[in-house]
């Protein structure tokens, strides 16, 4: 099992549930963004650097998501919380971040894909609940609308909780099995960083298209290079 105290485990589960709810249902206040979810998770487990490092990588992946219409997209919120917990605990705070990041991000990505699937399940459950109350809706019963709404929120909350809980169980199992040599751990980290940068570039290109935004993107890259050299 992971070496966190019970209050920390409960706080992580609660935080995972909240960020799961935030993605679509309520309040969409952007606490589900990996940068926010990861930093807070890092603070909860007492390793803010792990929270920031893992949160920033997963945030780059999230920049490739454009949640328009009925598009399907990964849920990075609970995934980030679990990834940070694994990164902070399983490999130990004394291990350099370069050896911790790859495996944590890998688990985060798998959970994000599982989160995408779980969103579809909840949406189908919502549709079934609406069908069950079709007569009440057709009769204009406000009570039926309220019940459907609370039911939908509850289902999504349960989804976030389950995702975080199962993620923590998987992370605990990974902790027992992890016997990484340094070279492989660093290689995984570099693949995670390289892929995350690819995701951010893809997202920026897709939003920019061939419009005037492309010039602004190029200008931003120029300023970024200067900042990277100076900082």
């Amino acid at each position, binding site marked *: 099992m992971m070496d966190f105290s019970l209050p920390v485990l409960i706080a992580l589960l609660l935080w995972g549930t909240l960020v799961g709810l935030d993605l*679509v*249902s*309520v309040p*969409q*206040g*952007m606490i589900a963004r990996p*940068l926010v979810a990861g*930093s807070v998770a890092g603070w909860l487990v007492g390793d803010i650097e792990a929270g*920031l490092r893992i949160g*920033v*990588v997963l945030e780059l992946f999230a*920049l*490739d998501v*454009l*949640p*328009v219409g009925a598009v399907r997209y990964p849920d990075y919120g609970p995934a980030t919380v679990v990834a940070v917990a694994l990164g902070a605990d399983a490999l130990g705070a004394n291990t350099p971040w*370069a050896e911790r990041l790859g495996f944590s991000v890998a688990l985060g990505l*798998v959970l*994000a894909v599982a989160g995408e699937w779980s969103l579809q399940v909840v*949406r189908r459950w*919502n*549709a079934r609940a*609406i*069908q069950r109350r079709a007569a009440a*809706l057709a009769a*204009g*019963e406000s009570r039926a*609308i*309220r019940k*459907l709404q609370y039911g*939908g929120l509850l289902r999504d909350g349960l989804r976030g909780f389950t995702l975080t809980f199962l993620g923590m169980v998987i992370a605990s199992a990974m902790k027992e099995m992890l016997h990484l*040599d340094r070279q*492989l751990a*660093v290689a995984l980290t*570099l693949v*995670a*960083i*390289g*892929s*995350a*940068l*690819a995701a*951010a570039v*893809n997202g*920026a*290109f897709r*939003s920019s298209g061939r*419009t005037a*935004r*492309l010039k*602004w*993107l*190029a200008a*931003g*890259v120029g*300023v*970024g290079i200067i*900042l*990277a050299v100076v*900082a």
Partner: protein
Amino acid sequence: MNGTLRAMLRLFAVQGTWNYERMLGVGMGYAAEPLLEDLKTVDPVRHGEAVVRSAEFFNCNPNLAGLALGATARAEYEAVPGSQIVRLRTALCSPLGAMGDELFWAGLVPGLVGAALVAVVLGAGWWAIAGFLLAYNGIRLWTSYWSLRTGMASGMKVGSAINASWLPWAIERVGPAAAFTVGAAVPVVAAWYLKGFGWSVGLGAAAVAMAGVALTRWFGPTLTTVRFALAAMIFLLVLRRVNP
């Protein structure tokens, strides 16, 4: 708490029952309830019909849903024929979806995230994260309030009100700003991670990034960057096992 404020608060959960049949429909019905309360005493039959209409199929960006909610609620009080209200709701889906997505999902969110990433890497830490949350939620709260008030004030003429509003102006400007900040974030973040590794490792990560961009663009939606990353990681693990 008055009906408008309750409706606005309920709009923050407008996607609570999101599904592929009615999409935001039930959430809109839930948010409409406080606005339609007075209609119950004035015209109970009309109230029942209005509740049914309020929860029917609807989809748009959640942050601009208040425009449709306010406009249809006002139309119900003005006894506009039901068929016209349904047409108004249907007509508002696409423009409110497109404008809201451009403004928030393709503009404000990546723009603020890009700025926050640069600030975090440059050492702003929690201030960057707090600034991101405050800026986004401040703008969103104000937009929700404005949307609902504008919808309620304009009723069936909500289309003209949107055209004459700040929305088209803001959409035109937020996109380039987002492109700029995300563009700036990519090299800054890359340097932050790769600083301690040396040239060969940096080139390796750059090669992975370039392969990721090329392959995911070549294969399209079947190969997302997440799938590319997981496939590359599995390849590494297998390679290590075969060749320890």
